[in-house]
């Protein structure tokens, strides 16, 4: 058991190192000059001295392996670099945005999973019937509308047309609200981004669960449960769904990656100040250190989630002897 855990951790560490190396290497692979690429969009006079200064600032004059070492050590200290464009440590900027994203993505993931599971179970149970067919068609249609489009439409309809919800930000600026008022304010701003993101995720979860359930329902133990006179709802969820969830759990990592992508667009559209929005401004400002920092953080988070799911998998499926 210990041996397996050690192997697993080692594999993950290797992956992380690999990714960090990639992250480190990319900007240095830029065709042309790194500095010029970074600052090409900015209005400044690039003289020889400024150039030299910048090279030194970014540590680009040191040999490659030293740079990498510095990079790693900085990382270990939680220092993700410095954003010269926004004039703040990258880590600070990221930490300011991260909680908002976590709130949005976390809630959305949970909500869409619950909705997807319940709808998928009920749909597959009534397979072929009107409920199933109409829900399936609806979900397939919804699946085709990218989060991008959903966000735009939601913005147009609910913000501009009806004016029910705010179109930007996570809080009303300068409101100074406290306690319950603050929470209500946050929630009010959260509704549209959350709703759109969740809606864009539900069809995927629904389809996964539905397909898995359709296979599970045929299994002999479902007939056994029926024969035992167990109530339908219990059979549906405790017997069938409990097994149908397994393929879903293996894909949690992929779903997380997917939801982050969606969040990126949603945040931009609603100007929700999370990591997505930050990324967008990093892109527009060509703020390389910031982008690097964001990539590192998001990769680490996704990996962390994958590790947790892997460890928990034995609990969910007792048939698994070892995941690695």
């Amino acid at each position, binding site marked *: 058991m210990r041996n397996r855990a050690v192997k697993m951790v080692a594999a993950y560490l290797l992956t992380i190192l690999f990714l960090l190396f990639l992250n480190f290497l990319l900007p240095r692979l830029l065709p042309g000059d790194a500095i010029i690429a970074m600052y090409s969009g900015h209005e400044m006079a690039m003289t020889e001295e400024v150039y030299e200064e910048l090279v030194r600032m970014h540590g680009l004059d040191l040999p490659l392996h030293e740079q990498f070492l510095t990079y790693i050590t900085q990382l270990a200290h939680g220092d993700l670099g410095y954003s010269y464009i926004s004039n703040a440590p990258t880590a600070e900027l990221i930490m300011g945005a991260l909680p908002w994203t976590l709130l949005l993505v976390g809630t959305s993931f949970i909500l869409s999973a619950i909705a997807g599971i319940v709808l998928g179970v009920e749909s597959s149970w009534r397979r072929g019937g009107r409920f199933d067919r109409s829900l399936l068609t609806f979900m397939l249609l919804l699946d085709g509308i990218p989060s991008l489009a959903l966000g735009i439409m939601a913005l147009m309809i609910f913000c501009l047309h009806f004016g029910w919800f705010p179109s930007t930000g996570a809080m009303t600026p300068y409101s100074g609200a406290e306690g319950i008022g603050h929470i209500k304010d946050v929630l009010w701003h959260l509704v549209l981004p959350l709703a759109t993101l969740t809606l864009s995720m539900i069809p995927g979860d629904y389809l996964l669960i539905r397909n898995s359930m359709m296979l599970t329902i045929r299994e*002999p133990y479902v007939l056994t449960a029926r*024969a035992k006179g*167990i109530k*339908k709802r219990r059979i549906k969820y405790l*017997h069938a769904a409990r097994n149908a969830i397994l393929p879903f759990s293996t894909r949690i990592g992929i779903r997380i990656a997917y939801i982050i992508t969606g969040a990126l667009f949603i945040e931009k559209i609603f100007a929700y100040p999370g990591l997505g929005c930050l990324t967008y401004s990093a892109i527009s400002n060509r703020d390389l250190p910031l982008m690097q920092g964001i990539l590192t953080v998001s990769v680490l988070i996704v990996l962390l989630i994958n590790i947790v799911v892997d460890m928990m998998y034995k609990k969910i499926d*007792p*048939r698994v002897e070892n995941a690695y």
Partner: protein
Amino acid sequence: MPLQFKNLNVQYRVSGSPDDRATALDNISIKINEGECVSVVGESGSGKSTLALASMKLLAPSAVMTGQVLVGGTDISSLSDSEMETIRWNDIAIVFQNYGDVLNPVHRIIDQIAEPLIKNGESRSSALDRSRRMLDYLKIKEGRDVLYPHQISAGERQRVLMAMALITDPGILVLDEPVASVDAITKSHLAKVINEQVDAGKAVLLITHDLSFVPLCSCRCEVLYFGSILESLPSHELLDAPRHPYTRALVRSFPMMERAKDLAGVRGVPPSMFSRSSERSCCIFQPRCTQSLGDCSQKVPQAVPREGAGSAGDDCGYVVCHRGGIATMISVKDVSKSYKDLLVLSDVSLTLDEGEILALVGETGSGKTTLAYTIAGTIKPDAGEILFRGRSVLDIDRKEFAKTVGIVYQSPRDSISHRFTVFEAIAEPLQIHKEFDDKSHGRIKDALREVQLPDDEYFLQKYPHELSGGELQRVAIARALILAPDLLIADESTSFLDPSVQAKVLRLLLDLQNERGISMLFVTHDIGVARKVSDRIAVLHGGDIVENAPSHRVIANPEHPYTKQLIGVAKGGS
């Protein structure tokens, strides 16, 4: 509480149109009382599982069910699913076939057993306690109960399924192939458990294809053939005295420890899905039956009382057959014969059924050959009578009767004229009975093919001295069968052959018998050979029949000392 099926009819919709239906069960009526165990025997596709599912109203939505299923007197065919939820497992429980994931792979075993108790409102700790004790009763060790289904063996899984079914102490138990996947020890343990439950007053429906398990647990046996019950009989008679041709064929196909006779399948092919319903106009087994008459393809037979091996007055079940089951072909009653002062046969009585292989075993001079020829009508007995299909042999025209009996002799070189070619030898019966015509050439070739000899012109022109002993004996068999007799007498037909050739000829005889369904009288001094060939052995000693019983019984439990002696010698003793 009792379980009863009344005129149960189950059909499956095959495609969209309401007329495309495949019949799974046709007009089934079975009654199981409390404290009784009834087994249903059948091959795959016979509808056994459908019966099990019907008893608990678990049929697929594409199934159409008519008739009644009475659980403790209540007809469940009209109940809704939620009403069934209370009945299921409380009144009637089922042990499914142990195949695939029949237990939920993500629940622990003890939880799955306790689940029905908790559903009934019992507290969790009390339910777990009772489950633990039930698992003890089924001999599942401590500590195994908190495992998951994939972590225990198949035998344990079967016992868990049984424990799960017994936990709510239902009045009715349905067991679907409960011993198909278990070892011998588990099998006997489960038999004990089932018997205990029956003694406690449960009604048990046992569905199985394991014929040796049937008499262990059940008192009555219903033979199911593609949706129709063909015979209902006391379980202990199943292996010894089946009365329906299908049941007999089934028993012959079942490997038993005691029986040495080679296995033979059921000839023909199973009926298609669509020809099984009552809308057909013939006996469902008719295409494969070797004793069918005209009526069999015209009308559906009804159930008639069955002659059992027990005393008259016992209910021995019923048989669904126009002929009342396997008919008796030959009935020998108190026949005696002497040559000069030598009493060869004294008051000999026996019967030979349609499609049965009877071995007459005895030493030289025991009278077996005399008896065989008396039956063939060649020798007239001094006393007693011999009935062939109800008529006395003496009343039947000799020539006509000769057509119904084919004889294969001991020495082929002697029984076939050395002047005859193969063609002429086989053609002889046709010539004798004036049946030789243009078609005969073809018939002779067919006959040769049937005994696995070449049918080309070159072979047809060969003379006996050009053939080996085995080939010649086959020619003799072809000759004996060319007129399609109903009875084949093999008089020491393999004694002069080498063992390897003997084996092949015996094999051939068995296959021919199975395919054509003719009755066979196999005369031999070798009880070892007899047991490989026959259904029944009659031992002759000094003009008397000292033993007459199914082969496996004679070999396993010989009654007469002479038989024991014969067996001892055959086994290699002194």
